[in-house]
Structure formats: C-alpha cells, structure tokens
C-alpha cells in the first residue's frame, strides 16, 4: 500500500513523471506520462501515455508486465520510483482527462517559474493522453538526488 505521505505527493505536489518498460530482449523503452492517479486500493497507479510514446509499450507489457514509474517535483527534486506489474490498459476517459489537466496545470506553473518558458508554453509541452495503462505497485524507492537515492521505502529495506 502506498503510504499517505507519498499519496499526497502524487496527488498534490508532483509535477513530472516518466515510465519505463523493457522488451523480451531486455531493451528498455521510455514512455512519457501526461497524468497519473492512484486507485482506491492505494496500490494501483494509472498512467496516461501519449500516443507518440506507445512504441513497444503494450508488446513489452504483454511479454513481461514490468513497469517502472518515476515521479518528481521540479524545484525541490523530491522524487520517487514505483515498480510493479501491469494490470491492464484502456482508452482515456473523462476522469483521466481531469487528472491530465490537473497535472498539466502544475507542470506549467512550476516549469515557468524555473525555466525561461511561459506558463502556457510549459503547459503545452504536456502531451495529450493516448492510452491509460495501470500497474500494481510492488516496490517504492526514494530517488531524490543524494546518497539515499535508490533506498527502498516499500517494502522497507533492512538497514
């Protein structure tokens, strides 16, 4: 189960996310993520992925089911990685588009405050969702830059 602090981070603070899969030949692939939400079980994350980044997505997930999502808050650099198993995919629905707009809004505000791009231009950089994939979280790692980056939070790593 995703801890409350990280739930809040995902829902209110995080500004950018990216997913990773691998093919049956262990070749990794990047999938930009335009929006993310946690299901009522607090274990399943749904990710909206733009059409342009679906190359090898479903074939890799069908082959081995492995998905790794990294989510960061730009500025503070607070970052977590979620690893787990593919549950399913579907076209984006109304609720996904609401989540996409919320994530896009946060991205635009934050990026325009750190980089020389307007809020509108920054928002426009977040691509429309093409497909939504869901995965069940197995492990959560802290990835905030520093010596503790890579430390597993869930399930807790033995010190």
């Amino acid at each position, binding site marked *: 189960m995703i801890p409350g602090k990280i739930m809040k981070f995902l829902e209110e603070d995080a500004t950018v996310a990216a997913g990773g899969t691998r093919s049956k030949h262990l*070749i*990794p692939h*990047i999938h930009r993520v335009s929006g993310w939400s946690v299901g009522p079980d607090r274990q399943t994350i749904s990710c909206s992925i733009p059409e342009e980044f679906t190359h090898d997505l479903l074939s890799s997930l069908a082959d081995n089911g492995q998905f790794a999502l*990294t989510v960061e808050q730009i500025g503070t650099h607070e970052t977590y990685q979620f690893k787990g198993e593919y549950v399913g995919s579907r076209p984006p629905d109304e609720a996904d588009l609401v989540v996409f707009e919320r994530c896009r809004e946060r991205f635009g505000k934050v990026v325009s405050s750190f980089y020389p791009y307007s809020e509108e231009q920054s928002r*426009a950089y977040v691509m429309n969702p093409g497909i939504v994939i869901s995965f069940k979280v197995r492990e959560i790692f802290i990835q905030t830059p520093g010596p503790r980056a890579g430390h597993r939070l869930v399930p807790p790593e033995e010190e």
Partner: protein
Amino acid sequence: MELPDDIKPVMQNEIPAILISCSGAGIPNTTIISQVYYVDREHVALSFQFFNKTVRNTRENPYVCVCLNDLENFTNWVLHIQYDHSESEGSIFDEMDMQIEAIASATGMSGIFKLKAADIYRVNSVEKVVYDPVTS
C-alpha cells in the same frame, strides 16, 4: 548511428533527461538525470556519481534508453545507447565534472554531486519525436 547536429543544443539546454535501464533479471529502472553529454557523433557520456541502480544495471545489461526534452520546439529525442566503458580522468571527465558542479550550483545542490567517472555509451539509434503543442 550518428547524432545529428541539431541535437547538440538540446543536450546543453539544462533541462533534465529521462533514462531507462534494465537489470539482468529484467526489471526496468526509470531515473531523471541532469545531463547527457555529447562526446562525438557516435558516442554520448553519462555521469557516474553514485553506485546506483543505473550503474549496476548497465554493468549487467548495457542497453539504455534516454529521452531528451526540447520545450522550445515541442520535441523529444529518444536515444537507444549501449554502455561501452568508463573514464575517470582526461578531458571528457574534466569537462563533465565542471558542468556538473555548474548545474548543481544553479539548482541549489552544490556539494551533493561528485563525479566518479564518465560512462561512455555508443549510440545505437536516434529518434526525433515532434508533436503539436497542446493548447486549451
């Protein structure tokens, strides 16, 4: 595969890139990196600062996918690269070391990053992803 000239400014735009590696056991790892360094037309370098999952993975499975962000032109560059070797001294190492300190200083993280080696990767493929900006 050769890197085109128009990728160079994107490598220097100070916008973080996304890196996906994969362990020998087949578990992908997604991470955000501060920069991808242009070495020559067929090679890029990534910084090795901590003995982290990416470093462990690339020693087990050399294949890596990197995505560069160009917010100005609504473009991504997706590179499939392959770990070749590491350099812990020399001109590439020195230049990366200086750039890392500059980025760390600019992002309030001075002293956290320390370069152990410049990991050199061969470029296997380059894809330019251009898309229409989302306006509403």
